[in-house]
């Protein structure tokens, strides 16, 4: 992640379109006819979708269906992948994030990401959470302290680490590390949180904590989660999108998808009959 942030610093064009990145009000996302290629391979074949603010949307589908590629479009994580090419529009609160003048660093303040495997920096717990603020150039210690505490509280980690903030983040358990990564994301007060299989490496207790957290965070953020766990998708999301070979097969309320999906392909997938 550090490497990626360094790369983004090369783009110095100020982005006024994605303004007020620290306002942390949940954002609406509109996707219009998005197509993605990796060289000659078409990974996303023209997707339209609208994601409402303050909702949890789950992306499901078999491996290689394009759901992670699609998720990574929202904070332009695919920009540096060899052979990546994209067409279409992705609008965040009405502003196209793929316009040439968009400052990707600013965009990523607004669109945070949590990965499959917890990836804390080899620094203290405090430094991990404060990292995003510091690279933004914020030096006010009181402000940073307050933000770190708030983020750790939001991530439901504060009580467990408040007396050991100087301890190495690497000494935390896997579940704690993942909540730390969520706190690190929350510290810069994004409006959207992307999660790419955030609990696939965690035990059931840690998974339940992250799921509870997602439910609570929905009040303030728009959350999109990629998951291979059908029960997780049905437990925590408001909307579910089913992808198959680069296409969006069905996108509906989660309760509809898991009780009476419209498409046979969706039913076959969620009932474990293919995929």
């Amino acid at each position: 992640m550090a490497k990626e942030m360094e790369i983004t610093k090369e783009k110095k064009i100020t982005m006024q379109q994605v303004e007020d990145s620290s306002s942390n009000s949940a954002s609406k996302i509109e996707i219009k006819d998005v197509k993605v290629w990796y060289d000659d391979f078409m990974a996303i074949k023209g997707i339209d979708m609208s994601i409402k603010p303050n909702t949890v949307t789950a992306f499901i589908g078999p491996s290689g269906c394009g759901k992670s590629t699609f998720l990574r479009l929202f904070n332009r994580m695919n920009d540096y992948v060899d052979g990546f090419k994209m067409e279409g529009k992705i609008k965040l609160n009405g502003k196209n994030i793929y316009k040439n003048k968009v400052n990707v660093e600013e965009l990523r303040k607004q669109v945070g990401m949590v990965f499959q495997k917890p990836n804390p920096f080899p620094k203290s717990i405090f430094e991990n959470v404060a990292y995003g603020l510091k690279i933004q150039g914020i030096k006010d210690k009181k402000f940073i302290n307050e933000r770190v505490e708030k983020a750790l509280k939001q991530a439901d980690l504060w009580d467990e680490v408040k007396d050991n903030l100087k301890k190495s983040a690497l000494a935390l358990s896997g579940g704690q590390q993942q909540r730390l990564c969520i706190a690190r994301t929350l510290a810069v007060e994004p409006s959207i949180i992307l999660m790419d299989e955030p609990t696939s490496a965690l035990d059931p207790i840690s998974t339940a904590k992250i799921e509870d957290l997602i439910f609570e965070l929905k009040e303030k953020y728009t959350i999109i989660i990629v998951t291979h766990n059908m029960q997780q998708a049905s437990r925590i999301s408001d909307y579910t999108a089913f992808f198959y070979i680069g296409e969006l097969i069905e996108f509906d309320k989660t309760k509809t998808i898991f009780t009476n999906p419209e498409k046979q392909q969706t039913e076959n997938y969620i009932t474990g009959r293919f995929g």
Partner: protein
Amino acid sequence: MVLNAEHQRELLNESGLKMLSLCISQIEKATEAFITHDSDLAEEVINTETRVNALDLKIENDCEKFLALYNPVAIDLRFIMAVLKINFDLERIADHAYGISRYIVDQDKKIAPHLLKSLEFEKMYNTIMSMFENITVAYQEKDVKSARKVFKKDKILDKINANSFAVIEKEIKKDPTIIDQTLLIFGVIKKFERVGDLIKNVAEEIIFYIDAEVVKHKNKK
């Protein structure tokens, strides 16, 4: 769905069908015992009730296990929900067969043929059997059309039941000595009417399972 879950689902489907056949047989035998005044046959129905109860518990238990172990969704979830509810309705149907049989064992009264005729008893029974046939086809072949046929037929039962009071009143006025027989047959007619309602519930659950359509509490043609 994984192979094992598919297998368990099939076993549950078979148990549901077995319960349906058993309950149909219970109603058939109870009615025959009632008409022919055959207390041995009535005893058989009463004894078979324990088999019905055991199968009821087995199905309930298997549904619980299926829900806990395989986390069914969509059509699989509707299937389990339908089997659970159908099982409950069938067990109630069997209870009515048991109740009719108890009348025969507990009360030594033969029903006069003219009374059975004026109360359209045979028509009522045949309608129930025809409804049973419809839900059996619907269940086995996932045939929603067959399930829908029972709604109209249930109205026939309702009508006979609604008329029965006036018919009985008339018959008693003609011959007050038949009062004990009329009370008995009135009880059976009430049970038949209730069996019709329960078969209708089963049809509704089959439709829900196959088409995800909730037809419960809706006007049906």
